[in-house]
């Protein structure tokens, strides 16, 4: 069972390595969006500092959404998904592996690079840690929830729009908690409460989402 998990994880990471440009698009999108705001708004440190957590989190969320469409689409198109569905290990395990790979490729680099982008917003250096931590806890939740939507909209025409409509409302609590954690920490009240809630969301979604993804994949591949 764990062999299949490791196999799928290794395969998806190897594929990402061979298709670097596909991976770079989502990351570049995040960097560009987060960098355009300071340029458009101008040098007003107080305003920039105030909007920084929200803007960076929204950019992360949209970037995650951008890469979701590809999560199962290629496997569906070339027939690999059928082989995955007929695999020997429980489908939920494979779904978890694919989602983990998606997060390692899209969410994890975002969390690492976010403090660098926060420089442009003159965000207090003491908040970098909270920002990165909130993204580290929050982006896997985005990947897990998004994967359910991606599995449900698999093979549909206009699936991309439907995916956004389906998934964005579910992203809202994560966005509020993630950006809120940084804002609270900035206001000197500590962001632990929000971070703990994000952690709880991560635990719950990590336990339940893979099985929801598996069920959705079975439905959309019939």
């Amino acid at each position, binding site marked *: 069972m764990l062999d299949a998990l490791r196999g799928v994880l290794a395969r998806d990471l190897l594929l990402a390595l061979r298709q670097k440009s596909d991976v770079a698009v989502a990351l570049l999108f995040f960097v560009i969006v987060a960098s355009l705001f300071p340029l458009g708004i101008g040098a007003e440190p107080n305003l920039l500092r105030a909007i920084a957590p929200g803007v960076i989190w929204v950019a992360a969320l949209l970037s995650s959404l951008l890469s979701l469409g590809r999560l199962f689409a290629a496997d569906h198109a070339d*027939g690999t998904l*059928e082989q995955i569905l007929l695999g*020997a290990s429980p489908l939920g395990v494979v779904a978890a592996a694919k989602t983990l790979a998606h997060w390692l490729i899209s969410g994890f680099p975002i969390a690492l690079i976010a403090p660098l982008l926060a420089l442009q917003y003159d965000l207090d250096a003491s908040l970098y840690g909270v920002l990165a931590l909130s993204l580290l806890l929050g982006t896997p939740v985005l990947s897990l929830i998004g994967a359910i939507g991606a599995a449900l909209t698999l093979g549909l025409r206009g699936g991309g729009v439907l995916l956004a409509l389906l998934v964005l409302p579910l992203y809202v609590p994560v966005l509020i908690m993630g950006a809120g954690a940084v804002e609270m920490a900035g206001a000197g009240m500590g962001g632990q409460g929000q971070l703990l809630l994000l952690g709880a969301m991560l635990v719950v979604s990590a336990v339940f989402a893979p099985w929801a993804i598996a069920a959705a994949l079975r439905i959309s591949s019939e």
Partner: protein
Amino acid sequence: MLEASGLECERGGRVLFRGLSFALGRGELLRIAGANGRGKTSLLRILCGLAAPAAGEVRWRGQEVGALREEYSRQLVYLGHAPALKDDLTALENLMFAWLLAGKGMPVPSDSLFQALRKLDVPMTLQVKKLSQGQRRRALLARLVLSEEQPLWLLDEPFAALDTEAARIVEDLVSAHVGRGGMVIYTSHQESRMAGREMRLDA
């Protein structure tokens, strides 16, 4: 071992087949024939549990396959007409991940993988996107060499895009499997030299 009873399949409001029943025991070979669009692929997808029939059921050793799921999946090999290969990986890497997905575990026996690909004469270190159509089919069919343990093989158009030499290798693999007591169901337009039962869907 494998029993289908009263299978019905519907596509786009049209009934493709109805009341289809058959049983397959050890060492039996079944060819499904029929014109295009008669539901050959749909039947195979129902038999392997990827799709649910509109009516009827498929049983494996007396149990419904929908309830068995992975337990049933472990017993079968299904090769569809989609390539099921990753363009950016080599044939060897594709075969290796197929091996892991089939739950055969680590460590991957690289010698057997080499042999399987060599037997079908597939370039191992080239990315699949650089292979020809026939070579891709060969890379996919190399899985059969490693699938002796799975009793049930479901093959959708295994001879499509193959030259005579590769077709003979596949025929030999199938015959050997049937000889071992395995079961093979395949669809094909071409008449084949292989002895076995035939079922026509357009009858």
